């Protein structure tokens, strides 16, 4: 019997002109691992919420959603709560209580489970998820990845047959995201939990999925196994930009045969189809040298006197008008480096110069007046008014004039509440707000976190627009694909020091482990191909290998 079945579901929010879901029909068998993707705002979350009775949106709707053959509305309240699990995007806000063990117990308490049984389940699940050491901790002490695992465990403890996940890895760094997905796959295999996962970071997800559902503007536009769907998917479909690099490359060069889903697939089936007479693209003209906008010279920093150095001997510079991406693992000191340049923290040794002037010499906040601004990682820390327009006029009454060159049309956002915007829109609204201080050097901390491929592209366009106006950008990011595609130069930070710094092409082709999927795919065959566009251009120049055609 189908674990979850949608049948001709159409739904509309009370004051909306068009339906949010249009005639959605599909069914998942027990134990299936299905991925649901689609651009932000296409109705993924609404669809998931229809399967979770407690969260059913207040929409007018027709059609049915059934769980194990029964309509979801007719399920007994406790069955509905325990049998259908739901994990959301934000790791922090889903946690209800102040102890890990209590968080695990929470669901079972709600079902009225006995003490002894709860004790046993907690012990079991802690050992399954390897979280025995955390049990007595305060969840705030856990890392983002651990918090999300805790959220998963506290849903799994109720032994659900169906697990719905709404972008659970969007707020995690790549390592934590991979760990979360591996855990999910293990649950799927060990307990045959049916999984419906809405996601836009598809690189790691697609290879493990049995089913791929694609949503487009409220309707299911494709449904099938990933290979099947991706073979048929139109090349300019909005979701294409978010697909794994092998898939995008396959489609860009019009590969034949099976669509590769992973790097190893692509190396095996796609690359041999093309010859390698031309191994390298011509080096693009180097960016003309400009005066440095920001210089770090032998900078040391630590948070406590007896602590260890977060930055040690950090030395590099960012040139005026360039987009510089600083990448590196967790705890490498990336955000700290930004905070120092923003004047929020002070180095205990070394010099930081902003436009040639020592940072200490900017007196009375002149540093923040038409000079340096930091867009924080959590952009919600910037908003305090009821509409975007109020947010902007708070800083500058004449914001329309100041932002006339802003490379994005803000008009549709102006009357909206900042918290009603999508992640990408929030990022852009916050960016617009910080641009009102007219910075010449803009520091951005993880601007692409949680954004889908289209919002990412939108943000990248805005950033390029800004550099064209002469604004210097220093971007700290985990998103190496973003750095490879958009940076003028990249720097790799590790243990508080800059290890290497170069143009993305040279930088990523010289890296072995910390590099883009395309670089790993084409290694040995082509040189210096780091983005899908690079590889596609090379492959098209070379043409197909005669032997195969």
């Amino acid at each position, binding site marked *: 019997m189908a674990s979850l079945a949608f049948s001709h579901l159409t739904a509309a929010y009370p004051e909306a002109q068009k339906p949010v879901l249009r005639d959605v029909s599909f069914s998942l068998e027990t134990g299936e691992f299905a991925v649901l993707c689609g651009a932000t705002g296409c109705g993924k979350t609404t669809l998931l919420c229809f399967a979770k009775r407690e969260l059913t949106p207040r929409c007018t709707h027709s059609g049915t959603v059934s769980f194990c053959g029964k309509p979801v509305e007719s399920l007994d309240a406790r069955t509905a709560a325990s049998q259908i699990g739901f994990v959301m995007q934000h790791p922090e806000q889903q946690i209800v209580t102040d102890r890990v063990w209590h968080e695990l117990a929470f669901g079972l308490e709600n079902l009225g489970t006995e003490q002894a049984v709860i004790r046993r389940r907690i012990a079991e699940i802690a050992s399954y998820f390897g979280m025995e050491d955390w049990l007595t901790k305060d969840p705030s002490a856990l890392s983002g990845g651990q918090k999300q695992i805790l959220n998963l465990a506290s849903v799994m403890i109720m032994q659900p047959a169906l697990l719905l996940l709404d972008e659970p890895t969007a707020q995690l760094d790549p390592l934590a995201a991979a760990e979360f997905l591996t855990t999910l796959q293990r649950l799927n295999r060990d307990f045959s939990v049916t999984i419906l996962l809405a996601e836009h970071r598809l690189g790691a997800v697609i290879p493990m999925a049995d089913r791929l559902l694609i949503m487009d503007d409220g309707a299911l536009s494709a449904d099938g196994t990933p290979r099947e769907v991706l073979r048929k998917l139109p090349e300019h479909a909005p979701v294409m930009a978010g697909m794994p690099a092998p898939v995008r490359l396959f489609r860009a060069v019009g590969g034949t045969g099976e669509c590769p889903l992973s790097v190893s697939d692509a190396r095996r089936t796609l690359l041999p189809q093309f010859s390698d007479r031309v191994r390298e693209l011509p080096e693009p003209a180097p960016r003309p040298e400009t005066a440095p906008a920001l210089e770090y010279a032998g900078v040391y920093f630590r948070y406590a006197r007896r602590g260890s150095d977060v930055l040690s001997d950090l030395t590099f510079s960012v040139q005026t008008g360039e987009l510089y991406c600083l990448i590196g693992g967790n705890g490498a000191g990336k955000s700290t480096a930004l905070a120092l340049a923003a004047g929020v923290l002070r180095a205990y040794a070394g010099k930081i110069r902003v436009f040639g002037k020592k940072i200490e010499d900017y007196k009375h906040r002149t540093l923040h007046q038409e000079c340096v601004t930091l867009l924080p990682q959590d952009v919600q820390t910037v908003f305090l008014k*009821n509409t975007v327009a109020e947010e902007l006029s708070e800083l500058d009454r004449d914001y329309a004039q100041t932002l006339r060159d802003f490379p994005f049309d803000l008009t549709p956002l102006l009357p909206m509440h900042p918290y009603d915007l999508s992640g990408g829109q929030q990022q852009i609204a916050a960016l617009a707000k910080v641009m009102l201080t007219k910075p010449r050097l803009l520091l951005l901390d993880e601007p692409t976190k949680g954004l889908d491929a289209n919002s990412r592209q939108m943000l990248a366009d805005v950033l390029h627009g800004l550099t064209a106006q002469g604004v210097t950008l220093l971007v700290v990011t985990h998103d190496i694909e973003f750095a490879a595609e958009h940076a003028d130069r990249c720097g790799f930070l590790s243990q508080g020091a800059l290890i290497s710094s170069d143009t993305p092409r040279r930088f990523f082709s010289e890296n072995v482990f910390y590099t883009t999927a395309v670089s790993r795919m084409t290694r040995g065959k082509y040189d210096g191909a780091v983005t899908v566009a690079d590889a596609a251009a090379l492959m098209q120049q070379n043409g197909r290998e005669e032997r195969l055609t």
Partner: protein
Amino acid sequence: MIVLKSARLRSLLRTALPFLIMPAIILVTALGWRAEHYALVSFVMVLLALLLFLSGFEKREIGTRRMILVSVMTALSVVGRLLPLLKPITALTVLSAMYLGSEAGFLVGALSAVLSNFVMGQGPWTPFQMFAWGIIGFLAGLLAKPLRRSRLLLFCYGAVSGLTYSLLLDVWTVVWTYGEFTLREYAAAAMTALPYTVLYAISNLLFLMLFAKPVGDKLHRIEVKYGL
């Protein structure tokens, strides 16, 4: 029918009890009932009222979202104590009560007292503080409609409740230091604490003036957006 009546009566009793306690304490003092047991009597009475009131919540219907908002407002008022010169507990208690109801107001006040005292120091004054802030919240909830309508009334209520809070705690000071309550000593204690009382009332009022609108707007938005 009888069951319903008695249930109503019980709920009425639970609601009314805190209001009976304060006059009762004053009455007992007036009748001069064994002065040396005065502290004991007032302590036990306050504790009882608090226990009864709090345990009454178990039977009441407060939705999950309201509960969340109570915990949010409580945490906010405790965190707000870190702000310079602003004393947010009274003001936020009043505002919560206005938008979330009397029970929520009582809870925000009482729980903020316990939690903030884990930072500021627990003492025998904790139940008194819980009680004082709880009552301020409860009354604000009863007056929710006029308070929501008139800003001026809200500020008056805020200033008065700030004063009341200090004066109620002065009762505590007298009872615990002298072991009995006499008007002469109360007046003396209130006089010594006067600068503090005035400062408290002012910073409380200041907080209310600064945050009445934003908090109101934001709670209202939440009410509308999520249908409380």
